[in-house]
C-alpha cells in the first residue's frame, strides 16, 4: 500500500516541529506514489479533536489518536503496529529526534521491516519510496531501497521542511490499543525538566559555542568574555556533552535534542563537530572553528578553521575585538 504513517510528538499541547516536517514530507511523497499521509498521536486529554485535525494543514488526511503515556517509545510502537495492521501502510516516517529513532527501530523489529536512520532525502522511484542517508561522517551518501510490506524511514533532524497548506482538516480516528506488557513496564516520573538558567540562543546574531575542548566548566568564561566583546545580540551556546556534564544550562544546547540555530556568525570553541551537533548549526551563515585537533570533523564544514590552543587564542581574540569595537 502506498500510504505513509507518521508519528507526531507533542508536549504541553503543541506539536513538535520535526514531526510536522515529517507530516509535510510524508504527504508530498505519498502523493507521488498514489497514497495518503496519516499521522499518529499518543497522549492524554490535551490531544483535542481540534488540535489533532489541525494536522490536516500539513497534509495529513487522517489522524489516529491513542490514549496512553507520553514521551515513551514503546507504547507508540504498539499503536503504530495496530494502525499499520488495520490500514496496511507501506511506509512509516519519522522526523528524527530521540523518540523517532526508538520507535522506528522497535517498529522494524515488530513488523520485520527494513529501517534507515539519519535520512536527509526521500524520493519516489517506480512507485516506491527510496531514502538517502549520509554515512561515514557525511563523506558518502547511501541509498536505501526496501523489500517487504513496510519500509521505515527515520529522518535526520531538520531534514524535512514544514510546509503548511491552505485549508486541510484531517479526520480524527480513535485507536483502541491493548498495550504490550513490556510497554507498560517503563513509566515517566518527570518529563521535560529544565536544568540551569533559561537563555535564548535562537535569536542571537552571534553565537560563541563551547564544547568539551574547553576542558572544564570554568573555561566557559572565555566564551562568555568573547561573546560580550562582540556586544549586541550575542549569546553563548554549548554542546550536548558539556550540558550533560553539567557545565552549562540545557537551554543553551545545540543539536539533536537541543536547539537549532542559524546565526550570522557561529564561533565554535573546542567543539569536534559530531553529526548530532552539526545538524543543529550547519545553516549558520559563517562558521568559525577553533580546535587543537587538526583532524576534527568541524573543520570540514567551517568557513574559517583555526588549529590551535583556545586557551591562548580566545583571550587575545577577545581583546582584539574589544579594541576594534573601541576604535
Amino acid at each position, binding site marked *: 500500500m502506498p500510504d505513509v504513517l507518521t508519528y507526531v*510528538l507533542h508536549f504541553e499541547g503543541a506539536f513538535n516541529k520535526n514531526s510536522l516536517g515529517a507530516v509535510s514530507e510524508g504527504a508530498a511523497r505519498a502523493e507521488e506514489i498514489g497514497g495518503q499521509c496519516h499521522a499518529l498521536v499518543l497522549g492524554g486529554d490535551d490531544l483535542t479533536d481540534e488540535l489533532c485535525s489541525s494536522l490536516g494543514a500539513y497534509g495529513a488526511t487522517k489522524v489516529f489518536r491513542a490514549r496512553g503515556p507520553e*514521551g515513551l*517509545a*514503546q507504547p507508540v510502537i504498539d499503536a503504530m503496529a495496530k494502525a499499520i495492521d488495520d490500514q496496511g501502510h507501506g511506509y512509516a516516517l519519522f522526523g528524527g529526534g*530521540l523518540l523517532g*529513532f*526508538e520507535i522506528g*527501530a*522497535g517498529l*522494524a*523489529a515488530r513488523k*520485520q*521491516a*527494513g*529501517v*534507515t*536512520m*539519519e535520512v536527509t532525502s526521500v524520493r519516489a522511484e517506480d512507485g516506491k519510496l527510496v531514502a538517502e542517508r549520509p*554515512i*561515514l561522517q557525511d*563523506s*558518502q*551518501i*547511501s541509498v536505501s*531501497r526496501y*523489500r517487504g510490506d513496510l519500509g521505515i524511514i*527515520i529522518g535526520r533532524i531538520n531534514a524535512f521542511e514544514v510546509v503548511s497548506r491552505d485549508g486541510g482538516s484531517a479526520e480524527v480516528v480513535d485507536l483502541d490499543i491493548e498495550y*504490550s*506488557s*513490556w510497554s507498560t*513496564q*517503563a513509566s*515517566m*516520573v*518527570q*518529563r*521535560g525538566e*529544565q*536544568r540551569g538558567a533559561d537563555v535564548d540562543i535562537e535569536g542571537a546574531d*552571534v553565537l560563541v559555542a563551547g564544547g568539551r575542548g574547553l576542558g572544564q566548566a570554568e573555561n566557559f568564561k572565555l566564551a562568555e568574555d568573547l561573546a560580550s566583546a562582540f556586544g549586541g545580540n550575542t549569546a553563548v551556546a554549548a554542546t550536548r556533552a558539556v550540558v*550533560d556534564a553539567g557545565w552549562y544550562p540545557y537551554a543553551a544546547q545545540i543539536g539533536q*535534542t537541543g536547539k537549532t540555530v542559524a546565526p*550570522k*556568525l557561529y564561533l565554535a570553541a573546542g567543539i569536534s563537530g559530531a*553529526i548530532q551537533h552539526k545538524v543543529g548549526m550547519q545553516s549558520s551563515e559563517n562558521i*568559525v572553528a577553533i580546535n587543537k585537533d*587538526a583532524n576534527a570533523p568541524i573543520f*570540514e564544514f567551517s*568557513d*574559517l*578553521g*583555526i*588549529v*590551535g*590552543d583556545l586557551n591562548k*587564542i580566545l583571550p*587575545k581574540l577577545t581583546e*582584539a*575585538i574589544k579594541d*576594534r569595537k573601541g576604535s
Partner: protein
Amino acid sequence: MKICVLVKEVPDAAVEKRIDPSTGRMDRSGEKNLNPYDTHAIEAAMQIREGGSVQVDEIVAVTMGPESAVRALHKSVSLGADRSLHLTDPALAGSDVAATGYALSKALEKEQPDLVLLGQQSDDGECYTIGAVVADHLKMPSLTQVIKMDVDGGSLRCERQAEYGYDTVQVELPAVISVGDAINEPRYPSLKAIMGAKKKPLETVSTGEVGIESGLVGEEGSRVQCGDFHDPPAKAPGQIIEDEDTNETVEKIVAWLDERKLI
C-alpha cells in the same frame, strides 16, 4: 543480577573508513578496536556491581561478528566483564540493523539476563537503534541515551535528555538500556587485567545453536538494501589557519570577520 553488555568491534577511529564498492558493505578490514561508546556500558555495569545496592553475579560481554571480533571481547573482559559470548556465523554477514538486533536477541535469550546494557551508538555505523530492536524481540522495556541510572529494588531509575528537557523514567527489570557517553568516565584496564583477559571463559556459538532462523538474517533476511553510494554535493573547503604566532592568528581572524562585516 546478571548483566549482559552488548559490544562491537569497529574500525579504529584513526583509520579512514570506506565502502567496499564490490560488496556495497563497509570495508571492515584494517585496524579494529572495541567501539569506544561500549566502554561506557561496561563501566556502567561495573559501577552497579561496585555500588553494592544489588548483588551482580555476572557481567557477560556479548558480540556478533567475524572471528576478529574476539579482540573486542578480550578488551571488554579486561575492562571488567567476567566472561564473553561470541555469536559468529558466515550466515550473518550482510545483516541490516533489524536482522542484527534479532540475531543478538536470540543470543541474549540463551543468557537470560536481568539487564542488557549497550553504548549509545557504534563508532562506524552511527546507529542509535540496536537497543530498541533487541528490546522488542526480548519483550523488555527499553530506554536509550541514559545518562544517570540508579538501581532501585527490581527497577531502574533512569535520566536522559529528550526533546523537551530532562526526563526521569522508572524502568522495571529485566530491561534493555543504552547509555550515553556522559554517564561515566570509563576506567583504563590494568596491565594484569589485559594479560588475564584471554584466560577468561569465551564461548562461541553459531546461528543454529541459539535458534536463529536463517531466513531472517544475512543479506537475504535483511529488508533494506543499501547501494548507489555517491559523494554528497561538494562544499567549498574553508580556510585553515595553523596557530603558530597567536598575535598574527588573531589579526587574521579579525580581518576575516571584518571583511564579512561581522564585528
